[in-house]
């Protein structure tokens, strides 16, 4: 906007427009908190976030260094979730196990959504040859089996949290790009974009100041949906042994270390971390679903 001298009121997002936007946001929040699914999902996530932050300070026992021998004691009043193969308290480990996945999965989702949104904005706005080439590339990425490619990349680069974040984020970006692209395609035909073009605004300005705020809704939904899938993928990679590494009490990793004992009836060291994963992904999906239906109302 720096180049223009005389600004007409409609060019400047005046205080009226800003307050309208924040009112719309408040209205959305009000609709959200009236949804049972949203409240339940948020409470479950809040619970795991508290466990992740406070960790050892609120667990009944030391999750790493307290050994109650012999191992594999069934659930009892002293150990509500029993003990694992080397005698550590399963409840304490499940509580601390939230930590790694709640750092890695959101970062992967953010990386995927930020890069995917940038890609989608460019593809949808500029169309033409750029869009054609990028669309082919997106298609090729969609044909990649996510888990298998992540496995291959982690074998090549070695497992570390950073690599897991990058691999999952990059594999998610094309999926986000496709969603944002189609949202941009319907926006760019609207009058406000034509008006901005006639005013001589740059493509960058139109994309960032005009179109982006209007596709923010689907982008936020995409972020929550991707967060759910990131937990899904990171947990699966940890279960396969190429995600988070020991001695992390990560849920997927714990299941992979204990699942062979299920057959002999020792169900507790696997079932509780498995239920923890299930509760987290279900909670995220409840939030994503509520967001989506509030936005489409």
């Amino acid at each position, binding site marked *: 906007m720096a180049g223009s001298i005389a600004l007409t009121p409609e060019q400047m997002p005046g205080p009226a427009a800003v307050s309208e936007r924040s009112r719309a946001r408040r209205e959305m929040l009000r609709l959200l908190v009236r949804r049972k*699914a949203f409240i339940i999902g948020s409470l479950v996530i809040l619970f795991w976030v508290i466990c992740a932050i406070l960790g050892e300070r609120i667990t009944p026992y030391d999750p790493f260094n307290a050994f109650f021998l012999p191992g594999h004691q069934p659930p009892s009043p002293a150990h509500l979730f029993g003990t694992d193969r080397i005698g550590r308290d399963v409840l304490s480990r499940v509580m601390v196990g939230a930590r790694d996945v709640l750092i890695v999965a959101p970062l992967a989702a953010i990386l995927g959504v930020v890069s995917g949104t940038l890609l989608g904005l460019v593809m949808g706005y500029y169309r033409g040859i750029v869009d054609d080439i990028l669309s*082919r*590339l997106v*298609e*090729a*990425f*969609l*044909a*990649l*089996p*996510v*888990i*298998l*490619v992540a*496995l*291959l*990349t*982690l*074998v*090549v*680069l070695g497992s570390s949290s950073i690599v897991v974040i990058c691999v999952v984020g990059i594999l998610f970006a094309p999926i986000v790009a496709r969603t944002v692209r189609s949202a941009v395609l319907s926006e760019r035909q609207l009058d406000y974009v034509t008006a901005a073009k006639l005013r001589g605004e740059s493509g960058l300005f139109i994309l960032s100041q005009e179109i982006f705020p209007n596709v923010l809704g689907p982008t936020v939904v995409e972020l929550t949906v991707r967060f*759910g899938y990131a937990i*899904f993928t990171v*947990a*699966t990679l940890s*279960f*396969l*042994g*190429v995600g988070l590494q020991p001695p992390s009490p990560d849920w*997927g990793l714990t*299941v*992979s270390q204990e*699942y062979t004992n*299920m*057959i002999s*009836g020792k*169900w507790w060291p*696997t*079932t509780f971390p*498995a*239920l923890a*994963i*299930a509760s987290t*992904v*279900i909670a*995220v*999906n*409840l939030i994503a*679903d509520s967001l989506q239906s509030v936005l489409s109302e």
Partner: protein
Amino acid sequence: MVRFIARRLILALVTLWLLATIVFIITNVLPSNVGRTILGPFAPQETVDALNEKLGTNRPLPVRYLESLQGLVTLDFGDSFVSGKAVLPQVVAAVGRSAKLAGLALLITIPLSIAAGLYAARRRDQRADRAIVLLGVTLSSIPEFVTGTILVVVVGVGLRWLPVLATAPDNADIPTQIRFLLLPAMAMAIVYFGYIARMTRAGTIEVLQSDYTRTALMKGLTTGQTMRRHVLRNALVPTVAVIAVQIGYLFGGIIAVEKIFNYNGMGSTMLFAAQHKDLPMLTAGVIVIGIVYMLATLTADLIIAWMNPRIRLEAT
């Protein structure tokens, strides 16, 4: 129709080339020294050099790239680092064994989820509809290995209804084989139920609101006749598309399921290759699954074009 198929085939080939390029970048460009990647940081330099010499990974990247594309055309993905045998026959055999498991999963999930989706669509926004949608969202968000774990604990170990290992004894007859595969197939079927049911529901709701459905009902057809002759054909278009896309994911999720149930298919082959840094095997695995995915989407496109002439006319 011929032009439609030709167009789709060319697009699929371009996608396949891009896919092979992405895989090449992961395996050859990301690691600066392939021999070092395989042997680890503590191996002596001479051993690393010798391995690079043997694998041909000390040659310039463009040469290796052209060779990998040549391999793609001639369907030669090189020899396994572990066994020294060609990787493709091993991968194809493993995919075949996994296909039994995946096929059974689809056989369970497709009829159930389409029925659930249709049932929900006809009771839109009623209690049953909400329950099916919520159940679908919930089930499709849980990783296969978590569902698998819970199934093993409850159905296998707790109730003792089904075997918890997927591999039937040698020379078992087909019903016995299916019995052994049932639990892992269920673990996968549960994840895909949600996607297919929601897609069927959305497609059906759209068609039920259309003018031609109203016309069909108004000219006196019964609900059953209208559903069979007018609604299903159009409503299932998005469902067919989503099933095809799921087949690609199915072979990703199957890795974890095979690990839980100790089944010797694609998943265990790939995990073994990952543990031994057998890059040719992993590469062939990714590309073969990519081809399976593309054949599935291609078939879906053809089925959709056959179901709905408007789509095939638009595309040409």
